[in-house]
Structures are given as C-alpha cells and as structure tokens.
C-alpha cells in the first residue's frame, strides 16, 4: 500500500505538467517538440501491444502509420472534409492491419518479423512508385489542420492540446487493455501459447484482435503525424521508421505503459533537440541505446525502477542496522 501514495503523486505531477506545458514553455518550437513526443508515444504504445504483451515483434508498423497518413492526405487533397478523411483513414488502416495480421500470424518469432517487414516494404513501394496516386517522393501536402468545436488547431498550443487528448485516450485504453481479461489472455499467448491452446483459447484470434488494436492506434498516430507535419512522403513508411518505433519500445521497456513513452521522448529529443548542439547526434543516440541495453536490458523504465527499489532497500536495511547514512 505504501508504494501507492508516491505513484499517485507522480502521476498527478505528470498530468499537471502535461496540462500546463504550453503555459510555461513560451516558445512554440518546444511545444511542437512536446507534440511530437506525444504523437510518437502513441505509435510506440500501439506497437508495444504486439511487442510487449503479445511477444510479436513487428517491423511493418511504419506502413500502417503511413497508410493512415496517406489516406487522409489524399482524401483531403481530393476535396473531402476532415471527418470523412479521418474516418476513412482509420477504416483503411484497420483493413490493412487485418491483411497484415492474416498473412503474418501464420508464424511467430523471426518469421513474423520478416513477414511484417516484407509487407511494410510493399506498402512503402506502393507509396514510392504509384506516382499517379501518391505523387511519389514529391509527397502530398495537407493544407489545413482540422477544427474541433470551432477551435482551429493551426497554432502550436491548440495542436498540442489536441495531441494530448488523443495521447491520454491512448494511455487510458492501454491501461484498460492491460488489466482486462483479454490483455491477460494475450500475455498468456506470449508466455505459453500451447498451454493457452490446450485450455481452449483461440490463440490466433487473440493475436489477430491484438494486431487490430495495435493497428488502430498506429493509424491514429499516423493521422496526428500528417496533421502535425502537414506533409507526407514515402520516407515515413520506410524501414527506418518501423525500426525507430521499435527502438522506442525496447529502450523504454517492453510490456510497460511508461516505457514506450520514455523511449519516444528519448528518440524525439535526441533527433530534434540534441542534433542542434551535437553534430554526431546519431552516435550519441547509439551510445545511449547501448548503455540502456547493457545496464538495463529490460528497458529504461523497468531498469530505473529496479535500481530505485534496490537502492531504497539498501538504504532501509542500513538504517535498520543503525548505520549512519551520509
């Protein structure tokens, strides 16, 4: 029970910080960085459903991310409204996710990874080569951001709050998912697939639904991305994006709620902020990942929690033995 107090306190502080962020960060550039962290965190949380709770490492999520972005961008360009474009984007992403799932869930492990990778590359190829539809690597511009209840999202602050709301919904839905019987059964298929099968669970269906759930939030993140950048081009769907989202999940800590968020923050901050000061920021990012993997193989958040706990216990043990703590 004693651990609950600080945890609620920490969550409260985090919420307060997120809510008031644009007030004390006066510069819109940093507000935009915060928006980017949150939108990538949604993508990382979505991938974490498969990687962390399902034990299914996908390298094709950038394609789902881009599918949503492209659908919305192309429909907007064709003159449709934001609502139509966004709903169609989510619908199409779910459809693509279902196809991905049907093809890739015939296997697990490395084979699953390779199939998702191949499918992702196919979608990237379509975006790159089907020039008459996607304009190839010239990309598609999105001229306006949507309005919510009459509030334009054109400014950095307004957009930040919109992303924050979506992010909060994503976190809540993930938290509910993890605690639900469905989440438990997904973890069951990760740890003991054959036993789950023997117990009468439909392992394939559980994984399929998890894939759709993951695809849904990846699509939402893709929509946020295209509205943030107001531009989409095939590079978004390339393998590098898939790998980056996976790195966010793994470095932050798989099968945790906070891990992917922390991972997203590290990657976005290194890529965008640190790169302004350090020319070899790629190298620094690499070193950070190596350090995390070396000292916290389970990821940043679980690792920090472990070190924190053991340090706390040592202190308490010392105090109990009457040793002075300096």
């Amino acid at each position: 029970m004693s651990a609950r107090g600080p945890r609620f306190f920490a969550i409260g502080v985090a919420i307060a910080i997120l809510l008031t962020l644009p007030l004390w960060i006066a510069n819109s550039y940093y507000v935009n960085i915060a928006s980017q962290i949150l939108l990538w965190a949604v993508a990382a949380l979505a991938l974490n459903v498969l990687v962390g709770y399902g034990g299914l490492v996908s390298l094709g999520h950038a394609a789902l991310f881009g599918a949503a972005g492209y659908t919305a961008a192309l429909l907007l360009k064709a003159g449709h409204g934001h609502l139509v474009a966004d709903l169609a984007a989510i619908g199409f992403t779910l459809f693509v996710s279902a196809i991905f799932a049907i093809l890739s869930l015939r296997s697990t492990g490395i084979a699953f990874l390779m199939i998702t990778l191949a499918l992702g590359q196919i979608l990237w190829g379509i975006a790159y080569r089907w020039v008459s539809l996607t304009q190839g690597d010239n990309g598609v511009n999105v001229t306006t951001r949507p309005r919510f209840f009459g509030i334009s999202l054109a400014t950095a602050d307004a957009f930040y709050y919109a992303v924050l709301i979506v992010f909060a919904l994503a976190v809540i839905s993930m938290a509910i998912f993890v605690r639900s019987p469905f989440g438990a059964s997904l973890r069951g298929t990760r740890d003991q697939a054959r036993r789950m099968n023997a117990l009468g669970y439909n392992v394939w269906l559980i994984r399929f639904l998890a894939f759709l759930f993951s695809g849904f939030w990846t699509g939402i993140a893709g929509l946020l991305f295209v509205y943030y950048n107001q531009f989409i081009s095939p590079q978004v769907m390339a393998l590098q994006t898939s790998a980056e989202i996976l790195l966010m999940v793994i470095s932050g800590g798989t099968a945790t709620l906070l891990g992917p968020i922390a991972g997203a923050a590290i990657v976005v901050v290194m890529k965008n902020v640190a790169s302004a000061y350090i020319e070899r920021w790629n190298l620094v990012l690499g070193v950070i990942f190596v350090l995390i993997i070396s000292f916290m193989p389970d990821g940043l958040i679980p690792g920090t929690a472990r070190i924190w706990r053991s340090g706390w216990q040592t202190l308490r043990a010392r105090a109990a033995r009457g040793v002075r703590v300096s």
Partner: protein
Amino acid sequence: MKVQRRTVLKGLLAASAAVAAPPFLRAQAAPFKIGLLTVKTGPLAQGGNQMEQGILTFLTEKNKTLAGRAIELIVADTGGNPAGAKTKASELIERDKVNVILGPLAAFELLAITDYVRDNATPLISIAAAEDVTQRKANPFVIRPSATSAQCCHAMGDFASKELKFKRAATISEDFAFGYEQMAGFQRVFEDNGGKVVKKLWPPFVTPDYTPYIAQISNVDCVFNGFAGSNPVKFMRAYADLGVKDKIPLLAGWTAMDDALLKSLGDEAVGVISAAWYSSEANTPSNKRFVEGMQKAYGVLPGGYSAGMYVAGQCVEAAIQILGGKADDRKALAEALHKVSLTDTPRGPVKFDQYGNVVGDVFIRKCEKKDGKLVNTVIKTYPNVSQFWSYDEKAFLGNPVYSRDYPPAKNLE
C-alpha cells in the same frame, strides 16, 4: 554605413520618438540571422557539408558582415528527410527567429516546408531542384538561385541535337522525382529538335551494380545520365569498364558531373559532356575569390552545392542593401530577394523571374585531363536561360509537371 543609419533614423522619426527609440537600439545591436538547413548525417551528408562550406566561405570573405549588418549563421541538420526538415525549419523560425533560411538540399525536403515558410512569412533560398516550387506551387517567400531540375537539361537536349547532331538517345537516372524531371527536360527539347529518345532506364537510388542497366543500351548515338550523390562515380566506372564509353558518348546533368566529384573520378570521366549552371572554371572575379577561399579553407574544388550557397549569400547581401534599415521585415526581404539582380557571382549574372527562379547562364562542359587533373572545360555557354527554356510560360505551366510519364515518351523501342 552612414547613409544606412540615416535612413533608419528617418523611418523611426516618422513614428513616435518615444516608441521608436528602443527598437532602434535593438535593430542596431541584433545581428541579422541566417539559418542554414542542411544535411550532415545520412547518405546526403556530402552535399550538405559542401553547402555549409559554401556559405561559410562567403561569410568569411565578408568578415561576417553583409551590407553593414553583423551576421549570425545557425546551422541545422535535417537528417535528409521531410519530417526532419519540417522540425528544423520550425526550430530556425520559431525558436531562433532567423531572418532568412538557406537550404534545404533535397527536393522532398523543400516540398515539405514551402507551405510552412509561407505561413510563417520567412524567406527561403533553396538549391533543391523540385520544378513545381517555382512553377505551379510558386511561393512568394521562396527563391532558387541554382536551377530547376530540367533547367540545364533543356540546354543539354538542345546541344545534343543541334551541335552534336545526335539523333537517337537513351536516358538513365535514379528512380525518383529529380531524375524524372531532368530526363523529361532533356527529352522534350531533344525530341522537339527532331531527335528520338528510344530508351529510358530507371535504376533504384541504391543500385549495387549498373551492369544490367548498361547492358540494355545499344543502337543509340548518346546516353544522357542524371545521377546524383555518389552514384555517378559508380555508374561512370561501370560504363567505362564495360567498354560502352568508347562506342556511345556519355552526356550528364549537373549533379552527375559536378566539379566537386572530379577528385573521385579517373579516366572513365574523360570526354563526358555535361550541362551545369556552375563551373569552377568560370572567369568572374567573385568565382576566383570563391574557388580560392574554398581551396584555402577546405582544400577542395567547389561544385554546385557550395556555389549555390555562396550565391545565396550574395542574394541576401543584395537584398539587405536594397532594404537598408528595413531588412528585419521578413515580407519586405522576400520581395527584395525577388528583385535582386547581380552581375558578378561565381555562376555569372543572376536575376529572378516572377516565380522566384533564377535566370542565368548554363554551361556545356567537356571533361578533359590537364596536367594529370580532370577539369570540366566550358565549350559553350547558353546565356540567360530561364526555367521555361524557349517555351511559352503560360503553356508550360498549363502542362503537368515533368514526371516519368510526362512528356510521354512516344519513341521508345
């Protein structure tokens, strides 16, 4: 200097003196900020570094002062992708509050940020080649002192058909928009002059071996290539190794035979004829200073990426001169940049059309070996070439943008 201060004072006196005094002090103290969007990591880093060297050479020569204003240069690395370009553009505009942005390098980076710089009213001087940025999507805040993708290729199409009397050509270039636009420009002029493009080949950007593509080339008078980055080096080596070079002359766009590449090339490049908007051989006073500065500071022969940024620096200087004390007004700066007309730049005279694209010379060069060193010797100069070549501007803009399918290749065999 004195004149400038007086004009500032005049302007300020017109306003209320009480309000005017503090901004006056600020305007004198604050440096004029130039943001450079370049690529320092990833496969495009070579060109990105050359861009940075180009503007640094210019600022060093000018002692970091342009038209009496102290200059602060802020360099941002986009990583060579559109989302990175957007984030870095927002860093330069919203955080660093730069007066003008130079760059970015790649067409897809430029296309990702043109709307953004317009919405934030910040002038941008790019060397990225995407045609539509100064055509169907022209933007009052963007100027381009280098060239559109096809600007030099139009001239090459003309030269190949009229002077070299070639009748049948094959084209080869990377499978992306810059390649499509270059090849389309060449094909259009070449075919309008009676030639025929009978084969168009599109290897992917990353091609380990060009042999299968070169093997498809036969029964043509020339091959026009538009490779970029380090690909031209690989391609030309394969082209010569396979013995095709001795039979079919090779023509090149500006990135495929850039002067900065010469140090990486050998005998395989001798005889290649290229069309470029910059030549390090050009005999203008500013080019001599530029080449000397680049050799002194970096020990390299400059190419288009560096020259483009040097010229961009000259444009900024000229625009500040036009505006006098009002150079901090970004909208006025964008308008002034469009009006810039320079007689002495490393690439020759420079002025801009109403869409913000340069009207300047295009050089036809032949690669030769002199004293054991490769040089691109200028053999013909097309003066004052516009992005529309000799075509009617309205009709040109009424057509779709150059692409893999436009203009249609009717003579493929």
